[in-house]
């Protein structure tokens, strides 16, 4: 053995490399690059799919873009879909930040819309939006928050797993809402309630003519506001600090004086409340009534939005736009490839993000 004894007298270089900005830039790279890689992977898989239908990928993607971001109507539809997805994505993201997997955004979204519609039907028409909007927000948040609060309390009090309870509540709540609508509230010959007149929110098409026919409405701004408030809450407030701590290491949070059970049920209520407000997009912004099954999967897609958005409110807004584009684009390319191809593409995005996050991170670290 020839290890020099002299080596033991020279000071070794510090173990950790210089950090500061490099570390932060790396964190940013790790947050954004996986999503970019995932979209590239999805595009390549999409190419192959399109080729199997005997079409040119270039043509299909051009159609897809023209049908979405290429005209005001398409863009309006994308923004409308992205609005609901932003809410359900935020809902799932808040849950995951607290260490809870909320599968129930679908029924929370529906309950939020339902309660808002009830309130709307009771309010006298002609009230200004300045008064009705806060009422609607509270009603929708209460509807979604109540539905999510049940699994939250069951988890905090009895340790019942929230995945099981939120899934089961989806069936119960959606069936209950359908019953109430069908038995007591529906307009004859339809599956929806009577129209709401009090403080219904305007669509963009009322101000900007080219948006004509599209569902986009001012709830979009509520969604952006919700994303900003959620970000502020999670990363700037003491409760947010405690919520994230609970999600990362519940034992350490407990050690840090946090009542973990309280955080759990409160996070579920907050999560459900966000999903519930999403119901306003359809009920108050688009149709002005509650209709059976209006959620139509937006709650479940919220899970994908949260995961692709890396549980970050701004990432969620971005991911909601991506999924809304793909979803609306499916209609645009329907003529040349089956619409189901778009569903496959959505799935590919999710799988690609799930797989590329650890892989891209590994490559980034190795490159240093």
């Amino acid at each position, binding site marked *: *053995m020839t*290890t020099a*004894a002299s*080596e*033991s*007298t020279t*000071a*070794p270089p*510090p*173990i*950790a*490399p210089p*950090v*500061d900005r490099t*570390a*932060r830039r790396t964190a940013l790279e790790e947050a954004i690059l996986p999503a970019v890689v995932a979209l590239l992977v999805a595009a390549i898989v999409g190419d192959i799919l399109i080729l199997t239908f005997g079409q040119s990928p270039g043509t299909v993607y051009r159609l897809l873009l023209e049908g979405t971001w290429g005209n005001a109507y398409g863009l309006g539809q994308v923004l409308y879909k992205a609005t609901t997805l932003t809410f359900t994505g935020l809902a799932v993201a808040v849950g995951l930040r607290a260490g809870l997997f909320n599968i129930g955004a679908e029924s929370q979204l529906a309950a939020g819309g339902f309660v808002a519609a009830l309130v709307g039907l009771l309010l006298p028409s002609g009230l200004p939006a300045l008064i009705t909007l806060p009422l609607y927000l509270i009603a929708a948040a209460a509807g979604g928050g109540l539905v999510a609060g049940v699994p939250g309390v069951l988890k905090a009090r009895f340790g019942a797993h929230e995945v099981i309870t939120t899934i089961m509540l989806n069936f119960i709540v959606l069936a209950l809402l359908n019953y109430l609508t069908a038995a007591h509230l529906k307009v004859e010959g339809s599956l929806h309630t009577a129209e709401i007149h009090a403080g219904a929110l305007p669509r963009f098409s009322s101000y900007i003519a080219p948006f004509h026919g599209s569902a986009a409405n001012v709830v979009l701004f509520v969604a952006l506001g919700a994303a900003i408030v959620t970000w502020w809450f999670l990363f*700037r*407030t*003491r*409760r947010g*600090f*405690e919520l*994230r*701590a609970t999600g*990362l*290491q519940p*034992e*350490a*949070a*407990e*050690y*840090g*004086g946090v*009542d973990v059970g309280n955080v759990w049920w409160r996070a579920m209520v907050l999560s459900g409340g966000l999903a519930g407000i999403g119901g306003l997009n359809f009920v108050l912004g688009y149709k002005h009534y509650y209709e059976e099954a209006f959620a139509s999967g937006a709650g479940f897609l919220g899970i994908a939005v949260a995961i692709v958005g890396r549980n970050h409110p701004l990432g969620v807004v971005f991911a909601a736009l991506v999924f809304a584009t793909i979803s609306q684009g499916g209609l645009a390319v329907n003529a040349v490839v089956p619409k189901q191809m778009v569903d496959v593409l959505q799935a590919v995005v999710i799988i690609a993000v799930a797989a590329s996050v650890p892989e891209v991170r590994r490559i980034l*670290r190795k490159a*240093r």
Partner: protein
Amino acid sequence: MSMAGSAASTPAIRLTDIVKSFGPVLANRGAALEVAPGEIHALVGENGAGKSTLMRVLSGMYAAESGRMEVNGHDVTGWSTADAIDAGVGMVHQHFMLVPTLTVAENVMLGRELTKGGQLDRARAEREVSELSHATGLAVRAQRTVADLSVGEAQRVEILKTLYRGAKILILDEPTAVLSPPEIEELWHVLRQMRDRGETIVLITHKLDEVMAISETITVMRHGRTVGRLRTAETTPAEIARAMVGRDVQLAMNYVAEEMATTPSPGAQVAASEPLLVVRDLVVNDVRRLTAVDGVSFTVAPGEILGIAGVEGNGQTELLEALAGLRAVRGGSIQMGRHDVTRLSVKARGDAGLSHIPEDRHARGLILDYSVAENLILGQQHRFTRGVQLDRDQILENARHQIDAFDVRPSDPQLPARALSGGNQQKLVIAREMGRAFQVLLAAQPTRGVDVGAIEFIHGQLRAARNAGKAILLVSADLAEILALSDRVAVMYGGKLVAVLARGDASTEVLGPYMTGAATGHAA
């Protein structure tokens, strides 16, 4: 430093220029190891020196980025764990990898299940494991369920498992961390027998007395490099320590004991003053709802360190969690000064002046993905607010101050706690818990897994707090630490305090029998 000459025969293990990194941290940066067949070789170094990493590379768990590995003269660079097992290289990990609900025999055959007609052949497995147990002196009954075993027995099962797979080269990662002194002696006996049969043993440790007691040759690592190779017979603990740390260090913690002996405790002077922590007839359950703390009573006076010695798993964890407010109390009471805190929340106890260095900094003490600054307010977050918002300026200023006062490195408050070495992570916990106003400190394993330099620092902090009139309850599996720091020493066994001795009356010899339950009932 004397260097051992190269062995004439083919070495059992030869590793050269091993490089292995985890993200930005280089764990091995050109590490080397050469072990002759049939010897007991100690691989020493401070925590974070890269010993475990190097051995995991050898056993195929990690792939090195560069370097060459030879076993018995064959190039085995980059092999898998399966290759390593086939070639007779087995590693016994620091944390047991056993299935608690299975029996000893089932655990041993796991992965190499014996079958007869498609069914597990339990009878044969039990027979074979019993035979191996007799042949090696690793006494444990093959039919017992692992959950019912003591820690020492569980470790024997780990070694049996490795031997059952035909290991001729055995790597043991810090095997004595959880053993009582008699159990350690037994382990040494077994290892010597194995060596006499021609098996090669690599022992990872940072305890110098163990190195001197059992090894023939020593490899010293520091900061991921191999910095020395010594023959045990030709060296001294001081020389090994110097190679480990790169400078002279005070050994055996005598410095603390001496200094404390000459500094009379303020608590002793005001013996009449009221104790700051009073525990009466405390009964606490463990996770399985069995009694873990069984009627424990003690007091800690201001300016006093009460040390609780004992083999881990005798109720110390549950006792501390109950005192900290993390575990419900079934019976008895806890008082801080005159206030009954038995039913208070963690937060309320903190506000009443309780600080707590938890035994597991990775699970409880730190949120690894949170920044240094955020970790430095954990438990105090309600004091760093402006309305509902966290006061980021105040948090940052607090971090700068604590980092400076407790010498946390690197000094970037925005770095995630995960990126710090074990010693600096522990300093972070200590800075948070001792860098604020407190009356009573619960210190659990305060120096576990930290390097010699940090141990010196942490012991200095504990001593200073004691001299400043704080009441400190010290729980440690390290008997030397207990003896060096405590004013009184209690021994916990089977959920009870079986002895409370004045420091002058306590020694390894006296405490050993209490720790194993061989002696009971002695109060100072």
